[in-house]
């Protein structure tokens, strides 16, 4: 039952093969039994999940089932859930029980999803290995000595370990796509503004975007349908109409022009990964796509520009954590300043502090033009590179990450090394474009993701290309050996 895609779960529930209570109980049992190996959950809301499942079964009986009625999913612990602790992977919010829910959480509930709990993540979504969580590192189900990627590493590991049918994630510089790649699942970062950021704890507000992490593109389409849409509570939420993402799946891709950025296949890319991506592209070509070499000339500046803009926005966003209204407060502060400085020193982990300090530096008097304004100008050049490319091609493809899942601890001592994990994903965040990572092969028994980037609000096309690929390949159906051997 835990291997079923959402599309099949909905079918099974509809035909009465099993109930939501049965599949929810099954997933909860798996979490209890297996998650000690992965630490992919921070909080499991078992009782609440069973109540939601019971209500879902009732609605289905009454003929009143919304599209995902009774499907068990999990939410990244960055989404506020009314009455359930929302930690953002941080000691700062270890005691934070939100008085309201994020729009994404409400939308998924309205679509009928059952929430199993909250998944682990890098603290405040800052990281590419899920090693910075206050609740402990997440282990990759393909090899528990390796990282799952980050920051949505808990969501990726939980889906890969078949502890939930799908999960929500957020992506500021690659935090959905890179862990999806490292854990062998399908992860979609929508266009900036496609999904509401209301109630999603802010890291870098001009880059943050929520999206689905699932077993297939078909499932990602179902989930995005539930998540997307205009939200008056998020001033950056788009009013562009939401299409029917499932309706377009399966259309042929004859003549589809796929751009291959020269810069994404140069030095730094593991040759074994280059080979797997090459083979995936040949498969797409076989399906009728036309491969076109393109240039994204400012690619090499995306990581530097991002590490100005994201920390700058983070230092502003995280200034709200001051020990006054919610979150961690230090013991016996001597004065107000001591309370701020100690509460923040105790509440935040090393990587979060580092980024706040970098943000304070690039925004400080005398440096603003050289850093922040320069980064914003490069951001426009990066966007313009993509606009030029989309004049010639329909989608852009390449690797999601420069390597497969790396050993735990391998990059944690060197922040710059860690930042380069997102070298192929960051540019799409800076430009605000949608991107999807889908499993494309295995290198030394570890999954490799193919990234496909689309034009603004072209998620339907991305999902269709991914779905066509998944119709003729089975990489997305492969799982960690320990799970496939399991009866």
């Amino acid at each position, binding site marked *: 039952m835990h291997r079923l895609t959402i599309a099949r779960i909905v079918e099974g529930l509809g035909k009465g093969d099993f109930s939501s209570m049965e599949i929810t109980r099954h997933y909860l049992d798996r979490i209890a039994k297996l998650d000690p190996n992965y630490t992919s959950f921070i909080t499991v809301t078992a009782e609440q999940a069973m109540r939601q499942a019971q209500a879902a079964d009732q609605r289905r009986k009454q003929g009143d089932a919304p599209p995902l009625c009774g499907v068990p999913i999990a939410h990244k612990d960055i989404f506020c859930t009314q009455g359930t602790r929302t930690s953002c992977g941080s000691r700062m919010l270890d005691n934070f*029980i939100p*008085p309201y829910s994020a729009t994404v959480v409400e939308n998924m509930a309205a679509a009928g999803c059952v929430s199993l709990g909250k998944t682990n993540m890098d603290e405040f979504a800052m990281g590419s290995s899920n090693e910075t969580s206050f609740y402990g590192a997440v282990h990759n189900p393909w090899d528990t000595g390796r990282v799952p990627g980050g920051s949505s590493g808990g969501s990726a590991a939980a889906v890969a370990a078949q502890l939930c049918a799908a999960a929500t994630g957020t992506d500021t510089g690659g935090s959905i796509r890179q862990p999806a790649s490292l854990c062998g699942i399908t992860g979609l970062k929508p266009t*900036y*503004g496609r999904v509401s950021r209301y109630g999603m704890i802010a890291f870098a507000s*001009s880059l943050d975007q929520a999206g689905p992490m699932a077993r297939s593109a078909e499932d990602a389409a179902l989930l995005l349908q539930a998540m997307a849409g205009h939200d008056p509570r998020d*001033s*950056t939420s*788009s009013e562009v109409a939401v299409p029917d993402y499932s309706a377009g799946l399966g259309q042929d891709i004859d003549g589809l022009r796929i751009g291959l950025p020269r810069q994404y296949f140069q030095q730094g890319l593991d040759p074994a990964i280059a080979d797997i991506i090459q083979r995936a592209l040949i498969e797409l070509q076989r399906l009728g796509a036309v491969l076109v070499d393109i240039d994204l000339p*400012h690619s*090499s*500046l995306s*990581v*530097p*520009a991002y*590490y*100005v803009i994201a920390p700058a926005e983070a*230092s502003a966003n995280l*200034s709200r954590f*001051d020990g*006054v*209204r*919610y*979150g961690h*407060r230090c013991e016996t*502060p001597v*004065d*107000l*300043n*001591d*309370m*701020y*400085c100690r509460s*923040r*020193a105790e509440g*935040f982990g090393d990587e979060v*502090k*580092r980024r*706040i*300090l*970098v943000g304070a*530096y*690039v925004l*400080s008097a005398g440096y603003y033009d*050289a*850093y922040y*304004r*320069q980064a*914003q*100008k*490069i*951001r*426009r*050049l990066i*966007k313009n590179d993509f606009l030029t490319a989309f004049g010639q091609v329909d989608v852009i493809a390449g690797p999601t990450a420069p390597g497969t899942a790396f050993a735990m601890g391998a990059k944690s001592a*060197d*922040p*710059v090394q860690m*930042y380069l994990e997102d070298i192929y994903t960051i540019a799409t965040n800076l430009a*605000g474009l949608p991107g999807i990572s889908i499993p494309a092969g295995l290198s030394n028994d570890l999954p490799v993701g193919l990234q496909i980037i689309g034009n*603004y609000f072209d998620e339907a096309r991305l999902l269709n290309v991914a779905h066509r690929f998944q119709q003729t390949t089975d990489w997305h159906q492969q799982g960690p050996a320990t799970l496939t051997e399991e009866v």
Partner: protein
Amino acid sequence: MNLDDNDIRKLATLARINVDNSIIEDVAHKISDILDMIDQMQALDTSAVEPMANPLDAIQPLRPDQVTEPNQREAFQAIAPATENGLYLVPKVID
């Protein structure tokens, strides 16, 4: 870019985060590395480029100046570290 201990102390004050003396050198070293990586940006002449703050170049939407949210003070204060009579308590600011 080489930041020293004093630079870090100044940033720590700006950010209102205590940085322990025992780790200040390591923090300076790591932040200097990050700034070195960021400095790759400086090689590019961008004098003719307009900065971009929002990927869709969107502008701030406005709504009528009307109260839309109900008062939830009790719910919000239930999770505060210290409150009294509907007010948030902090250490004494003025003697």
